[in-house]
């Protein structure tokens, strides 16, 4: 069953702007991950944040996690046209299996 729910479902921004996507989940987790999927392709792991972490950075990506609200956000700063993709959050509640949310489709307009 799906655990995460992304918000918004679709987001369109101009190149150079920041993009923020949110993810909510229902049960306790060990970690939360964000993946990117270019159209018609496989998923690529972006970043993992553990349940005892509140914020993590990787390049232009910033992820926050609020376990009390069971929510996470992914911020992409200074977006580029190449960032156009679908972004999925995925949670790990037990050992190693992922449960994906429905995804946010990001369009970055040059």
């Amino acid at each position, binding site marked *: 069953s799906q655990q995460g729910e992304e918000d918004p479902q679709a987001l369109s921004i101009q190149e150079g702007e920041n993009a923020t996507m949110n993810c909510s989940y229902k049960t306790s987790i060990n970690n939360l991950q964000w993946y990117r999927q270019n159209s*018609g*392709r*496989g*998923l*690529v792991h972006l970043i993992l944040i553990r349940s005892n972490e509140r914020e993590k950075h990787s390049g232009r990506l910033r992820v926050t996690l609020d376990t009390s609200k069971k929510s996470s956000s992914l911020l992409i700063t200074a977006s580029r046209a190449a960032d156009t993709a679908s972004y*999925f959050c995925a949670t790990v509640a037990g050992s190693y*299996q992922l*449960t*994906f949310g429905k*995804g946010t489709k990001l369009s970055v307009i040059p």
Partner: protein
Amino acid sequence: DAMVIQNPRYQVTQFGKPVTLSCSQTLNHNVMYWYQQKSSQAPKLLFHYYDKDFNNEADTPDNFQSRRPNTSFCFLDIRSPGLGDAAMYLCATSDTTSGRLGETQYFGPGTRLLVL
């Protein structure tokens, strides 16, 4: 480069005609997964192999089977494809050996299945 490879990238089959999708990996990971992803939806886990142990998801139809003859290869067999089985099928791997938690998954490019 170490990677997950899926063949073919596109597969067309006829209603009811058995079809096999292939996945291979050069990462030497011990866990391999098969996901089904329909248009604009999240990937849905069908089953996974933990080493040689097969783990089926409770809601995976019996029509879907899998084989893992060795560490590197894993196959998805659809015995009698229906129109509703048209989707992208994604193979992924993770590594739980040597103390690794296997939390991050590495995906292949997917095989898009069309059922006529």
